[in-house]
């Protein structure tokens, strides 16, 4: 039994405003939002965190490094396709995007520290070893950045897990960036 992918015409009344503003922002309603809309609380939560992240101390490229690392590690093909597209929109260097999609380390030392922190957070479910935390501080990140990373991890946990549960199909708008993992990397 499939989960419904809503449009702003089929969605529960209280989800419609969120879908309309999403359509305005992206030019269409991504399937993730269409699935979340079945629960007005969930779609509003997702949009609310996204809005809060406009105040993030992380640059748009750094935010996409985090989103892509979470999504590849959690093996969420939908989210990798969507965030690869967004990464191109915010001009992430092509070499960085390719490495992230292939789950390889990054030659940019600072971005790689960010990627390493994210993998450590997921692997240890938040129990990040002291060395990993020191590593990201040495790369120039602060407590504020670390909290912003955790906010993105929460946002992507919501989308990765919902997409796993609902088997959300990739939108045609993201099809050029479709992705398949070689192996799931988290036990």
């Amino acid at each position, binding site marked *: *039994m499939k*989960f*419904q992918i809503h449009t702003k015409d089929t969605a*529960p009344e209280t989800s419609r405003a969120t879908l309309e503003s999403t359509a305005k922002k992206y030019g269409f309603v991504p399937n993730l939002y269409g*699935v*979340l809309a*079945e*629960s*007005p*609380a*969930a779609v*509003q*939560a*997702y949009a*609310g*965190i996204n*809005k*809060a*992240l*406009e*105040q*993030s*101390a992380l640059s748009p490229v750094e935010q996409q490094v985090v989103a892509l690392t979470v999504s590849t590690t*959690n*093996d969420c093909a939908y989210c990798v396709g969507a965030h690869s597209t967004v990464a191109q929109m915010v001009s992430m260097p092509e070499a960085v995007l390719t490495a992230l999609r292939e789950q390889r380390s990054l030659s940019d030392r600072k971005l790689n520290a960010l990627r390493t922190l994210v993998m450590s*957070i997921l*692997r*240890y*479910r*938040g*129990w*990040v*070893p002291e060395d990993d*935390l020191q590593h990201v501080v040495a790369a120039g990140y602060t*407590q*504020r*950045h*670390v*909290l*912003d990373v*955790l*906010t993105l*991890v*929460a*946002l992507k*946990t*919501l989308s*990765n*897990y*919902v*997409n*796993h*549960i*609902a088997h959300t199909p990739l939108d045609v708008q993201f099809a050029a960036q479709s992705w398949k993992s070689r192996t799931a990397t*988290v*036990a």
Partner: protein
Amino acid sequence: MNRIAHLDPQITTGPAKALFEGVQKKLGVVPNLFRVLGNAPAALQGYLSFNTALADGSLSPKVRELIAIAVAEANQCAYCLSAHTFIGGKLGLAQQDLADARQANATDNRTDAILKLARHIVVQRGELEATELEQARTAGLTDGEIIETAAHVALNIFSNYINHIAGTVIDFPEITLTHGCATSSCACG
């Protein structure tokens, strides 16, 4: 040991100040989790809007606390376990119900199904078996409630992970962790 500063709302300035005042008005105190979040306006605002959106959802306040307890136990977050056991008690939940929730058990069938779904989502990182999804639906959960439960899991993972990284000092009656980790890769030692 705390690894991220716990801000004092009395002397905080900037964007966190107004958010702290909102928390103070709503809860009567500013718990340490929020004092940690205050170091990052995006994180504090994100957490508050996440909470507010789910508070308007279809799951009752009591069920929401029970989910938080089940997820905190699975992730071995003593701070969250202490906070949500305290809040659950204030909402009138029996001590036995609060204790049962740690193992994702409830006497009410529907609540029991929600807690087990939440625990499966945490432990399996969202990758549910078809039979697990079917059990949730058989217990009467709608697709909207299933998605909302996943959102609660994400919200609680947010606070669990923050507390793990920050080493947030527990400022609720402390509940100690007694059980082994539910998750294979837990590094809580």
